[in-house]
């Protein structure tokens, strides 16, 4: 058994001070093994995005311990152990698609010659090879997100963090993108932490769904998704899939009304 890629014990986060204090997370215990695809799901304000950002050292925990890839989150960030994809593609609109993918490679001092090749490789991986010279405003939302994913994987991190990446896309594009992400996960072997508030999405993508309850955010349930690793359209019609969706939905309801949980 390899070491877990994320290990959280008793993690809590409080924003602000005095009157404006907000407790976003409380007592989070979570373990993510290498190669896992874990979804964090919960209602607005349950702290799932905060938890993702704690893992990425974009925010620091107030209590508890958090180990990412065997190190402190700050060190993991300095070592470039993870890539992140946000809900908005956040592409730089003065750079073309290829240059956008090269951005992390520039900052991480990859040799000049290697950058264009690596970038084009990643664009081929997300099937946007022909768009290297295009600019972000020329691409659709789904395509922009694919560029963002290519960028996040360009430096082959061990971990991929995704914060509701498909939230702004329409349903059909969303399903296609979900298929894409599963394919990339299988091909690259990256561990994934995926924040969403779509129950079908969480079940379809993950090996495990972590259900969170509203503020202060706690983990109210964890549901193993025992669907086969290769998933496609047929999976969406599999009875076991529907059962799991119902299970997650009920877990969410329980979490919201305060029953169960740690």
């Amino acid at each position, binding site marked *: 058994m390899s070491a877990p890629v994320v290990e959280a014990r008793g993690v809590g986060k409080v*924003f*602000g*001070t005095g*009157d*404006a204090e*907000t407790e*976003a997370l409380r007592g989070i215990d979570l373990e993510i093994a290498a190669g896992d695809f874990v979804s964090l799901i919960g209602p*607005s*304000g349950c*702290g799932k*995005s*905060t938890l993702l*950002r704690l893992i990425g050292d974009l*925010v620091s925990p107030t209590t508890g311990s958090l180990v990412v890839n065997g190190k402190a989150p*700050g060190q993991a*960030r*300095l070592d470039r152990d993870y890539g992140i994809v946000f809900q908005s593609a956040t592409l730089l609109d003065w750079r073309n698609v290829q240059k956008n993918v090269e951005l992390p490679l520039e900052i991480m001092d990859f040799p000049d010659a290697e950058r264009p090749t690596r970038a084009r490789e990643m664009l081929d991986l997300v099937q946007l090879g022909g768009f290297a010279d295009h600019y972000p405003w020329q691409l659709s939302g789904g395509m922009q997100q694919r560029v963002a994913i290519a960028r996040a994987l360009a430096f082959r991190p061990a971990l991929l963090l995704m*914060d509701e990446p498909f939230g702004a896309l329409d349903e059909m594009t969303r399903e296609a993108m979900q298929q894409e992400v599963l394919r990339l996960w299988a091909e690259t072997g990256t561990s994934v932490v995926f924040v969403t508030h779509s129950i079908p999405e969480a079940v379809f993508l993950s090996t495990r769904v972590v259900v969170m309850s509203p*503020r202060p955010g706690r983990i109210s349930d964890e549901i193993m998704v025992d669907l086969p690793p290769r998933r496609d359209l047929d999976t969406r019609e599999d009875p076991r899939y529907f059962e799991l969706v119902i299970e997650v939905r009920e877990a969410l309801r329980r979490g919201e009304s305060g029953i169960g949980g740690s």
Partner: protein
Amino acid sequence: MTERDDLNRDDSIWETSATDVFASFEGDIPASGRRLSPGRLVRRYLPAVIAFFSVILVWEGLTRLFGVESFVLSKPSEILISFSETFGLIWGAGMRTLFEAAGGFVIGTSLAVATSLAAAHWIGFRQGVLPLAIVLNATPIAALAPIFNNWFGLTNPFSKMAVVAVVVYFPVMINTTRGLLEVDPAELELMRSMAASPSEVTRRIRIPRALPYFFSSLKVASVLSLIAAIIAEYFGGPQDVLGQYIVNRAQLFQFPDAWAAILVASILGVAFYLLILAAERWLMPWHVSFRTNE
């Protein structure tokens, strides 16, 4: 440990207000008032106040210490003395200049609003006039001053008002037109669904929408009008206006007197600006929360 590690330990560049951070990614803004307590107000402006008085003190100190001649750099004390001694004179001059500025401001703004309404209404007019206005705005409009002096008379305040009017006209016209044209298609559809007439749409939607742009251009215009009046006076005018007074004093190397007059000009400029600000608050009370970028 590399330099990069050390630089990354400095978290100050990532600092934003904690509640804003939370709101931005959880999408869930906890209810909290954003009023500035007196304590925070003081803390915010204290550095500037301290800096101001320090600069004045250092300025005074250094000029005294090195015996700097007043034509090289006037001491603050000299300026203040001149200010109090010539107050009646310079304040009177200031009033006359303010009159020119205000007159030109009114004329220019009225013409600008009229043109904007026309431009918003008729596309052909707009396509001709708007680009022309943007180009003309790039010209040194004050260069018209000698023409107006000859047309209307050197000592006639109207010759200066004309310059002010032209200077003020362009920014107000351009910005107000933009504001009138910026319409939310959803609002238009709503009005249409209620069978509203075009003038109703103008009155209820376009004008309120244009007000922020209009007022921001008015604020610019208020500052510009005083400056334009003074510059116009530099091209020639009666003795008892600020511009001529400043130029005369400067040519005689009486710089503290000139600075005192400039102090008057600044005070008047700020007052004019604050007047517009007050008008804006009174007419657009709902907009105060929007003005975060001011």
